[in-house]
């Protein structure tokens, strides 16, 4: 009996002391956090992809709360959750958000094995960043895709995969959340997060080559040579610009008229998800080598199309 009593008292005393210690410790070391951060965090996707530009979802939540205190949520977007999530976040913070157009990752290289033959063979760690250290890479193009799949490793949503035939990454538009992790992982900045466009239709220059036309043309059948024919074709909307021998289509200005596609002598401009003109072909994000989308243009891509003036731009 005595023993039991002693045990109870001893254990009770230890428990009490420990409880007191814990109480004071929790008071002393308490971290005061805005409770709204937790609430915002709860509605975020918790993928911690960093696509918003902040370190993880918690960082983004903190930024949202801070921005709300300053009066506006502008410029903050969770690319994964998109509009619905941002509305929820705004609701919690008592704000409104303007609609932002959905985006998708686009691989701006069409240098498939056929278009851009391999000149040498790389033997080493399977990483684009490592391969970049040998210089140009396996092909003659200093700007094109390595095909080692750093973007695949970076994608948390299983939305990008290397096509074994073309050795180019292809984006699964259903799964892509436009978080931009692949774009950041790409050592050559080939992947761009672009506006998805109305009905997912868009015009894209599938090339990233900034070399002069002659060099670009020599090593890749599908390269943009910076000839500027597309710029002329788009005089009406002024959506296309050529900088450093590379054409770029401004998605906001583009009216999807497809004139540039016809004008391009190398077939570097692709119309994605557009209804076919004559022959029906499905166009995934990065069309396969021999499936150039609806090329009924008179100047079909051939190798004789060396530019008249390769150094006209720049």
């Amino acid at each position, binding site marked *: 009996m005595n023993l039991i009593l002693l045990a109870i008292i001893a254990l009770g005393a230890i428990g009490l002391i420990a409880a007191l210690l814990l109480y004071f410790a929790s008071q002393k070391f308490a971290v005061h956090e805005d409770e709204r951060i937790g609430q915002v965090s709860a509605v975020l996707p918790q993928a911690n992809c960093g696509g918003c530009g902040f370190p993880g979802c918690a960082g983004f939540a903190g930024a949202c709360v801070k921005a709300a205190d300053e009066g506006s949520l502008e410029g903050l977007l969770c690319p994964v959750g998109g509009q619905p999530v941002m509305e929820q976040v705004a609701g919690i913070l008592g704000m409104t958000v303007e609609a932002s157009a959905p985006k998708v990752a686009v691989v701006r290289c069409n240098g498939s094995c056929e278009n851009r033959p391999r*000149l*040498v*063979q*790389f*033997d*080493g760690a399977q990483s684009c960043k*490592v391969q970049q*250290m*040998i210089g140009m890479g396996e092909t003659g193009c200093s700007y094109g895709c390595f095909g080692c799949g750093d973007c695949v490793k970076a994608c948390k949503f299983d939305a990008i995969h290397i096509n074994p035939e073309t050795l180019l990454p292809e984006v699964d538009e259903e799964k892509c959340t436009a978080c931009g992790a692949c774009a950041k992982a790409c050592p050559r900045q080939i992947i761009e997060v672009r506006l998805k466009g109305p009905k997912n239709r868009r015009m894209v220059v599938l090339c990233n080559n900034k070399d002069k036309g002659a060099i670009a043309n020599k090593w890749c059948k599908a390269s943009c040579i910076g000839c500027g024919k597309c710029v002329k074709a788009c005089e009406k909307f002024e959506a296309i610009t050529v900088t450093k021998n590379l054409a770029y289509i401004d998605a906001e200005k583009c009216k999807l008229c497809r004139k540039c596609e016809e004008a391009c002598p190398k077939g570097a401009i692709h119309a994605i998800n557009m209804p076919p003109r004559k022959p029906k072909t499905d166009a995934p994000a990065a069309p396969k080598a021999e499936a150039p989308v609806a090329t009924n243009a008179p100047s079909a891509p051939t190798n004789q199309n060396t530019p008249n003036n390769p150094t006209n731009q720049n």
Partner: protein
Amino acid sequence: MIIMENKLIVSLSPHVHGGDSVQKNMYGVCIALLPALIASFCFFGLGAVTVMLTSVLACVFFEWAITKFILKRDKLTILDGSAILTGLLLGFNLPSNLPIWIIVLGALFAIGVGKMTFGGLGQNIFNPALAGRVFLLISFPVQMTSWTDNVLDHVDGYSGATPLALMQKAILEKDPSVLNNLPSSLDMFLGQTEGSMGEVSALLLLLGCAFMLWKKIITWHIPVSIICTVFVFAGLLHLLDPVYANPLQVIFSGGLILGACYMATDYVTSPMSHKGQLIYGVAIGLLTVVIRNWGAYPEGMSFAIIIMNAFTPLINTYCKPKRFGEVVRKEAAK
């Protein structure tokens, strides 16, 4: 991948390799174990052959089965020699009259739990062979500690208790005279004692160890630090109180040499830096003597190694190799 013929290969430097390989290292250890293996066959007869064969075959089989059917990897790893080595070491740690089903169970634990659950070669935290041995020792203490007589042993006219058990008995009974029953250090060194198969001949094990050092499979740090620590610690105890055995007898008894040269030096589970390896070795030496003298089991080597295996990541974090120019850097900081 597309087959690329007649194309220059490009890769980053270095473009040459020293020619070392995992197989060379693993089979090197196996070769180092051969003399002791043959000796144990001679000492223990057919039983030893059966135990060893079962252990090796079971380990290889489980490695194959697990990679193929559970992990579903295309590349089979049974030829890299690590499973064979695990089987050999496990066999060395078993008495020669162990029932086959227990050996198979031990091999399953060693490969299945000790190695493959962590992801296979290079990932395991504990030495697989030791994990299997300790599992069997705890699960089947009776079978694991009833040794048959060493065939060559009868001249000494005793049987039954092993040197380790005698040593512990001396301490428990506080009677140094028990130690008189121990075989001489020389007999122990040459291999005239009882025990598990690999625990018999210190000489041949050391011979194999010398081979591994020569082939640069292992460095001297771990074996030397373990043996020296045991010698010093056991020596001190012996000087203080004669109930503790002579340090030479401590070193040559049981699985100490086997553990120090072959088990503690396991690549995967030992520290990476020389400093860390010395700490690891000293700690194993101390733990071994403590467990042997005051623990519940007569043999402390396997437990000591397993315990220090668990500390290896910690040692790796805190024991960095000496950086080039470090001395200068410290002086500059002052």
